């Protein structure tokens, strides 16, 4: 009996680390528990995304009766801050303070912004909707306070994510970056999924008090998660505060220097085109299922779950591939290539009524998008010049978030415009399908542009590193050349 027990224990011991996701990331200096703790900031960002784009989007329109156009403007406000991510990244790269931190002050300030925005948001929304006695309040009060709340929450999430990812880059060696990115993305997805379920249950019986409770709980959760994430993570380097031998570069100087890197602009174009190609589908898949294929609400909700599942599988798969040393841009290209048949399947589903093709296409879009996003972020981390990690990740985030936002805005506009001006097309299977199919075709074109733009990057990597099996910093590569 005792020997069986010992055998079982040794079996669990041998199985454990092998099957723990991301267990191989840990080093003696950076144990897994610390990495998981660091990735908690992504949960707060995921929660913010779900609350702004999903939950409040619906609650404001359906339960509170706010006009859809006003809701659309409010939700898009955080996007205005996205381009400033590059500036935030640069400021955190060059930040000097007595305490010797570069990233922590930014994560803390971002957290304060998020908390502050959430703290006033429920009351701002209630005043905006004219609930209670707010119908007699001046109209500007609701608009300005709601705009301030959305702007603060969005800006906070952008700052926290930029500085947090830069801190993760600082703490981990280049060969671990693919797994770190995988872990960060998985935590973002976990944050989104868990908070979507919790918000859904908590707001099922909607009343103003419940809205205040839910959003202010989110504020507290953000504060706690981000504080726990950054606690004792960054090594203090007070000596950095001493006057440097040469002054720190300005943002413009840093940006010019950053853009001088080989193919830097091309890399950002790849991120922008690919993200927009995949992002345009985000808000159209569910209405396409309902409007064109005639699916019920429950069935279309399943599409989002399938899309998320595809994303989760994609992140794990990309982590595996990149962790084994695959070229990040080659993997990104494969992600974009997967998008081509995926969108073709979705397009074919309309005229032939192929529900299965639509489901498979939906899963593949999530899968391809995840591989693409993972690979481009990994490449950004690994190519980031040593003293410009914040700027590089900020530029990636700025392009990615702006492209995703513009993609979402464009997709809805193009669909409506095409449907308004095009005659009814029976061959597409349903009235209203033309607009959707125009957008999906445009997405295929954008993917083709992305695939073509990636080729020189893969060639460059192969030229630099014939085995192209290891991830190394470009600064080191250039130094070798």
């Amino acid at each position: 009996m005792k020997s069986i027990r010992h055998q079982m224990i040794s079996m669990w011991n041998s199985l454990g680390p092998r099957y723990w996701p991301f267990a191989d990331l840990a080093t003696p200096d950076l144990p897994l528990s610390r990495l998981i703790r660091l990735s908690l900031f992504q949960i707060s960002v995921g929660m913010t995304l779900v609350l702004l784009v999903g939950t409040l989007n619906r609650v404001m329109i359906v339960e509170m009766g706010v006009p859809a156009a006003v809701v659309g403007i409010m939700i898009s406000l955080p996007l205005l801050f996205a381009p400033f991510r590059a500036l935030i990244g640069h400021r955190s790269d060059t930040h000097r303070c007595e305490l010797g931190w570069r990233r922590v002050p930014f994560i803390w300030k971002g957290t304060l912004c998020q908390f502050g925005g959430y703290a006033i948001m429920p009351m701002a929304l209630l005043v905006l909707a004219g609930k209670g006695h707010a119908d007699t309040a001046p109209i500007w009060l609701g608009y300005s306070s709601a705009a301030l709340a959305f702007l603060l929450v969005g800006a906070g999430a952008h700052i926290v994510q930029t500085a947090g990812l830069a801190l993760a880059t600082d703490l981990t060696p280049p060969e671990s970056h693919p797994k770190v990115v995988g872990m960060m993305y998985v935590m973002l997805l976990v944050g989104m999924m868990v908070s979507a379920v919790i918000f859904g249950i908590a707001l099922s019986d909607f009343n103003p008090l419940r809205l205040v409770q839910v959003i202010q709980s989110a504020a507290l959760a953000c504060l706690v998660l981000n504080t726990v994430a950054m606690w004792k993570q960054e090594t203090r380097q007070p000596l950095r505060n001493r006057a440097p031998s040469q002054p720190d570069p300005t943002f413009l100087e840093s940006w010019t220097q950053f853009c001088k890197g080989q193919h830097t602009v091309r890399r950002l174009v790849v991120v922008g085109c690919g993200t927009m190609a995949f992002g345009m589908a985000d808000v159209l898949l569910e209405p396409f299922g309902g409007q064109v294929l005639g699916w019920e609400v429950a069935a279309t909700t399943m599409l989002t779950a399938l899309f998320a599942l595809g994303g989760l599988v994609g992140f794990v798969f990309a982590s595996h591939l990149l962790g084994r040393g695959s070229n990040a841009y080659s993997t990104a290209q494969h992600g974009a290539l997967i998008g081509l048949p995926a969108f073709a399947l979705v397009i074919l589903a309309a005229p032939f009524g192929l529900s299965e093709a639509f489901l498979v296409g939906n899963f593949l879009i999530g899968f391809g998008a995840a591989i693409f996003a993972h690979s481009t972020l990994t490449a950004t981390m690994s190519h980031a010049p040593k003293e410009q990690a914040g700027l590089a990740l900020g530029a990636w985030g700025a392009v990615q978030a702006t492209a995703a936002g513009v993609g979402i805005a464009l997709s809805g506009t193009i669909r409506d415009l095409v449907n308004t001006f095009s005659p009814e097309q029976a061959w597409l299977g349903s009235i209203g399908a033309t607009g959707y199919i125009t957008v999906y075709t445009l997405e295929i074109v954008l993917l083709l542009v992305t695939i073509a733009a990636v080729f020189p990057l893969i060639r460059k990597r192969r030229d630099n590193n014939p085995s192209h099996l290891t991830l190394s910093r470009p600064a080191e590569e250039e130094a070798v050349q």
Partner: protein
Amino acid sequence: MAHETQTADLDDPDRIWPTGLTIKESEELHKHIIDGTRVFFFISLIAHVLVYAFTPWGG
């Protein structure tokens, strides 16, 4: 580690224990606390104005 680190000199006589912070470091920490308090005050002011608009109190 990806970054070269220059950690604090713990034998520095300017450090005051048990916190181990220098005067300048503690002043900076204090500044963060004061700034944070100002932000919270400003946010709570806006929140109170909005709550008053939603459900006025005091008659």
